[in-house]
């Protein structure tokens, strides 16, 4: 809480914590005191599910350089997936996905 630089976003996904997999609902991204990495301040990412209590948390603590690299890598991966037609938002994929579901139904 020293810098108080923190942002929260609502997310959907799953994370593996100390008790196994759980549903993720929020991600907290801060640039503040970390718990473990040998830095005074770090880019901290906590994937959490607030409704399940403080223990529903998957944590990473990154150097600023590593965090930028992670952000770039995530975006680059999504751009490639989108351009190759793998993302569900694309019309083509929705069509294929629908067809597969239809096939399973029969």
């Amino acid at each position, binding site marked *: 809480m020293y810098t108080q630089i923190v942002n929260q976003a609502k997310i959907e996904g799953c994370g593996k914590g100390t008790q196994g997999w759980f549903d993720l609902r929020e991600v907290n991204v801060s640039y503040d005191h970390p718990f473990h990495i040998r830095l*005074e*301040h770090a880019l901290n990412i906590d994937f959490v599910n607030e409704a399940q209590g403080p223990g529903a*948390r998957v944590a990473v603590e990154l150097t600023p350089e590593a965090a930028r690299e992670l952000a770039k890598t995530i975006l680059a991966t999504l751009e490639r997936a989108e351009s190759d037609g793998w993302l569900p938002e694309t019309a083509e994929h929705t069509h294929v996905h629908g067809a597969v579901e239809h096939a399973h139904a029969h």
Partner: protein
Amino acid sequence: MYQTNMYEGLLSETVIIRGANGDSINAYFARPLGPGPYPGMVLIHHAPGWDEWYREATRKFAHHGFLTISPNLYYRDGHGTPEDVAAKVRAAGGVPDEQMVGDVEGSLRYLRALPYASGKVGCFGTCSGGRQTTIAASRLNFDAAIDCWGGRVVMSQQELNPKQPVAPIDMTRDLKCPLLGLFGNDDQAPTPAQVNQHEEELKKNGKTYEFHRYDGAGHGFFYYDRPAYRQEQAVDGWKKVFDFLERYLS
């Protein structure tokens, strides 16, 4: 001073106290075994939480002859490992200053009511707890206060928010007890310039204080489990803490 042929014993345990708004919260309490009377200390934990270092510090003060209590300022935020709870509070931007004052006041009341208390009580905090110590010492009747590298004592208008509506430096006129400050000159929060600004305000208001600034140290130089630990400065800092308390709580 402890001699090797002296009997020594401590009791340390979790207790429940009444904090802000009459809420029940837990606290870690340690005391020397003996009839007293003993002075007391309230320890305000740091941003990384109500953690093992604070339990150890609580026992350390008790070992030095103080009834010592460290309230869990994050009690209302749920339970889990100290780190998971502190991460939740970090995401929420910390706890409100007003709530902290209520929890510290409850701790003070708990100590003063003990049958083996001398009645004199000090306050100690590091990091966010150092900042909160300066607030508590301005709002409550402590006999001594120790701020270790508390940042955000000096706050810009933009930094004020509903949880931290008043900059601690602006409470200096209300400071009710002598203040000891320990700081590292390589710290980013507080910066040496902010420490100087705080000192000027203490002088201006005629307060009793002593500030010690350490070269070669940054933020959190007492924390032996962090890379910020500085052995020489930490040993000297602890000595200054107990010398100060000897003068004002005896």
